């Protein structure tokens, strides 16, 4: 009886270690700096912004009627330049992409689009970044998936690539048809 008790007591540190190891192993795949969007399942916040091309104001109704992406970008953002090629591919496939030009200068942005190509149907011009705050933007680039009713389905922070597109965006676009 004493022998089994001793083994039992000796194994406690081992059990604790194994539990900790599992927890920490899982923790390795955590991304604590990433914030989940508060807007998933909620409608696009109301806004009224001019576009890069003109001063005519547009509002959130541009998202109604089809699945679309809202891509938050700026000329000062290096990763935006990286994801630009992929966005151009998506646009060529027929994906509707709206841009939110974040805290940028109109002229610089227009030159950028001219030089690198324009995959956007239109670009909201958010010079002060106030509308971006309503979206909960905290890192550029960000891409939001909006459904035909104007409800936000997903947000990706960081450059958009094929893996994320296939794993996170496409499945969410099949559901509501």
């Amino acid at each position, binding site marked *: 009886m004493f022998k089994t008790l001793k083994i039992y007591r000796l194994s406690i540190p081992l059990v604790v270690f194994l539990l900790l190891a599992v927890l920490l192993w899982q923790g390795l795949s955590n991304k604590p700096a990433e914030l989940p969007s508060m807007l998933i399942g909620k409608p696009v916040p109301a806004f009224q912004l001019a576009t890069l091309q003109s001063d005519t104001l547009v509002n959130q109704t541009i998202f109604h009627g089809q699945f679309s992406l809202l891509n938050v970008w700026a000329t000062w953002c290096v990763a935006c330049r990286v994801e630009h090629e992929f966005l151009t591919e998506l646009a060529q496939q027929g994906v509707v992409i709206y841009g939110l030009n974040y805290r940028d200068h109109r002229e610089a942005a227009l030159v950028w689009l001219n030089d690198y190509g324009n995959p956007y149907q239109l670009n909201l011009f958010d010079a002060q970044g106030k509308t971006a705050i309503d979206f909960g933007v*905290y890192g550029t680039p960000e891409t939001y998936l909006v459904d035909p009713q104007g409800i936000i389905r997903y947000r990706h922070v960081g450059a958009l690539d094929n893996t994320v597109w296939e794993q996170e965006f496409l499945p969410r676009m099949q559901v509501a048809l």
Partner: protein
Amino acid sequence: MKRLVCVLLLGLSLLGAGMWSSAATDNYVFAEVQQQVRFYALLGELRCVVCQNQTLADSNAPLAADLREEVYRLLGEGKTNAEITDYLVTRYGDFVLYNPPFKNTTYLLWLAPFFCLIIGAIIIVMVVRRQRRAL
């Protein structure tokens, strides 16, 4: 004893110095002192979501400047502290609060240290008792 007191005083003064430093070089004008007090208190409770180890008071990130601007604007509109923190939580989530709220999801976070302390105390008591018996 004297050395201990000196070390403690030094430690406390360093702690105090840390609390007063702030990267917010913005110049905000307030209608009343009370608003200014609330403003800086709020900034100390809100996290910069870009430099996530800093409060809005300390961070130099452009987004932090924008959010300070928002807090200032909301204060000017007469919002309460709760309304202002709500405004930010609606957009950025609970993480924007520097102190995590006490909710079902955070009970473990808040209470775990106390449990660990209690368990540790129990273990110490058990070990000491066993040693005394051995004597």
